[in-house]
């Protein structure tokens, strides 16, 4: 049985998201998906949040000769991140890019 509730996990994830993007005013933040994942050693709440960024999202492009050492920068529209929260301690573990099509 998890020690923090799903609601607490979502609340913590939102706080950490805002903190991690403190240099950027995030817009239209919404909870998109939540699941309780079981790893070998622990259970974690995987909280996926979607939002619009004010700043441009940097995308690392595949390295090909004529693009070597270049970096493309574009607006990606809505961004999705999954924040992992330890279900026992409530600690924030990490944030992953949530790949969507």
């Amino acid at each position: 049985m998890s020690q923090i509730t799903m609601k607490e996990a979502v609340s913590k994830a939102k706080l950490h998201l805002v903190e991690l993007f403190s240099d950027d005013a995030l817009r239209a933040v919404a909870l998109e998906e939540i699941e309780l994942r079981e790893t070998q050693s622990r259970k974690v709440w995987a909280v996926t949040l979607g939002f619009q960024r004010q700043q441009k999202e940097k995308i690392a492009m595949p390295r090909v000769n004529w693009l070597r050492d270049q970096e493309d920068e574009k607006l990606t529209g809505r961004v999705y991140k999954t924040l992992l929260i330890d279900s026992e301690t409530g600690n924030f573990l990490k944030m992953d890019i949530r790949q969507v099509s």
Partner: protein
Amino acid sequence: MNGGLDQQLEAYIRQYSHDGVLLDTNVLLLLLAHRFDPQLVGCKRLEKYDIEAAQLLMGCVGQFQRILTTASILTEVSNLAGQMLTGSKKQAFYTMLYAFFSAQIPNDVQHCSIHGIDLHIHQFVKLGYTDTTILAVAEKKPHFLLTDDLDLFLDAQQHNIPTINFTHMREAAQLI
């Protein structure tokens, strides 16, 4: 619920209440488990839900004349329920679920066949068989889809399938 989502849901109810609502596997499992035994909500495969979520779902589904489903959704529901339950409780749940598989299905349930529908390979590779059939069935008629699977929801949106993310409903109803 917030204004935009509320209005969107009301519009879908007006348009699709007679046709029905196509429920994704997790959402249908929540509905059936809550109907069978509300104490199952919040346990095992339903850890991410609570009673309030189940009640919100029941209230929404109650606006539609029937639940639409497919053989693959029911198979997944059956398999997941099998992982949740044991003994006599499992048998009792399967007895309830049998009605969905039998020739005399309840009046408020309708099977959607994928017979004759082409499945898109890129969806199959990305989402797997069940979600691909859900998209194919929902796109053809179209049917209103309620899901809390983000990939399925976004793909449905891309194909102009009428859909709502149940997680958005929960957040908008201030349940999360």
